[in-house]
């Protein structure tokens, strides 16, 4: 047996946008054990949500994550609306869907760029991020902000998308689709990309379920599961079918996200074409009742789970948020042992980790 060494990977590492530490036990260059350590970004947001009056928690939840900000706000509103329950207007459902898919589009472009960066394909990284800028511009035009799109309120949405904005969005989204197709063709066919991703970090169908995985990470192992199949907001009116791959490796995860990128664009265009006229919100009556509810929404990284318990006051008794990365981190305990040290970065990145989300 080769001598063992323990090597810290992170919390600061070029491939990690956020801090997580992996204590890797190595035999030569091979990983034999791993212990993930978080705790660098815990902000006590769930506690703060108990201390704030419920409408103010929207802003707090939108700051759980910088990438899925809008979807956190929407999911928080969704779970609180279920406490009454409160039916939001149809136009608000479509607007939430459009902004959620816009968030998915820029998030997947961000991740595909990071993946290219991780294996040293710098020009591909820059091209993905150049395209992403166009989507961020759409968010700024429609929601008023590139990063924190505070569009949801309890009862609906606070902003509308007018006819001119809608026309502009559809034109830009078609451009984004065309430009992304050219890049994705390189991603899925390039020899170097395959050499760095195929067969790396393999997780079988059964392992993905046993480890409680979610999102593209789960679907890349062949599990056809996506919260959008519940038909929440406008998804029930749209043509939606989960995208699945069967390889269970880093390459399959990239392929699922590449496919979901096109799908997100198509869903936005379809939602724009079907969006009805009407009110943007209904006003809640009184305080959230003494009741409890859950909400499960598909973020770019997978299922975000909100649990809320009301007590009849302006404050919630309890708010629990389980983000996708929280569910996907344990899979590293299975995927990393046995791999080469050089592949650790790609495998970690393949779950699209978001640590600020995880720690809240």
């Amino acid at each position: 047996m080769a001598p063992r060494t323990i090597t810290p990977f992170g919390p600061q590492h070029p491939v990690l946008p956020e801090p997580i530490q992996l204590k890797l036990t190595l035999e030569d260059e091979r990983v034999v054990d791993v212990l993930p350590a978080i705790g660098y970004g815990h902000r006590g947001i769930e506690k703060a949500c108990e201390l704030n009056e419920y409408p103010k928690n929207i802003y707090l939840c939108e700051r759980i994550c910088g990438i899925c900000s809008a979807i956190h706000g929407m999911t928080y509103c969704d779970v609180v609306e279920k406490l009454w329950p409160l039916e939001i207007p149809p136009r608000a459902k479509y607007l939430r869907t459009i902004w959620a898919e816009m968030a998915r589009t820029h998030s997947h472009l961000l991740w595909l760029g990071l993946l290219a960066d991780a294996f040293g394909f710098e020009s591909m990284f820059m091209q993905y991020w150049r395209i992403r800028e166009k989507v961020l511009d759409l968010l700024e035009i429609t929601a008023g902000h590139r990063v924190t799109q505070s569009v949801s309120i309890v009862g609906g949405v606070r902003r509308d998308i007018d006819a001119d904005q809608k026309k502009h969005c559809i034109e830009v989204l078609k451009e984004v689709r065309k430009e992304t197709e050219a890049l994705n063709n390189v991603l899925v066919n390039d020899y170097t990309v395959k050499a760095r991703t195929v067969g790396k970090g393999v997780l079988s169908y059964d392992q993905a379920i046993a480890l409680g995985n979610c999102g593209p990470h789960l679907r890349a192992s062949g599990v056809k599961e996506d919260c959008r199949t519940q038909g929440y907001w406008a998804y029930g009116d749209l043509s939606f079918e989960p995208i699945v791959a069967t390889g269970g490796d880093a390459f399959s995860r990239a392929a699922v996200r590449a496919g979901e990128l096109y799908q997100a664009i198509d869903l936005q265009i379809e939602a724009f074409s079907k969006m009805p006229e009407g009110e943007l919100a209904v006003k809640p009556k009184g305080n959230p009742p003494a009741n409890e509810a859950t909400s499960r929404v598909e973020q770019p990284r997978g299922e975000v789970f909100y649990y809320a318990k009301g007590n009849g006051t302006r404050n919630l008794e309890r708010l629990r948020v389980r983000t996708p990365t929280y569910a996907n981190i344990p899979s590293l305990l299975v995927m990393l042992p046995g791999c080469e040290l050089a592949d650790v970065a790609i495998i970690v990145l393949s779950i699209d980790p978001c640590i600020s989300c995880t720690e809240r």
Partner: protein
Amino acid sequence: MIDKLKEISKDQLLAEVKKYADAKVKFVTGSCNDLGDKLEVTYFFNVSPGMDMSALRFVVGKNEEVPSMTGIYLTTVLIENEMKELFGLKVKDLAIDFGGHMMLAQDSPVLPMLKSEEQKAAAQKGGN
């Protein structure tokens, strides 16, 4: 209201969870809530593939020990450490025990998710 919520005792926990694992049901997450002298623990599961969710709930005294599910579902390691650290839930036989410092630093508040007296009084009056 939570659909398919089953109330159990902590002694039934592992047997109930084993049934889920044997049926290849996916663990979703858990939630803990401070009820005063007791803690309410809820675990959520999903029949995969699909979106059919069910839940197990038990209430324990703050000084009672609770068995870890990590021997059945390794993925529960994060939530069990979190509940131990933030609520003081006494989870025994954790597969990986972060020793109270998975989320919190050495100088962090102790058991920060427990409700303060001010918070309980405010809730009774109708809000903070």
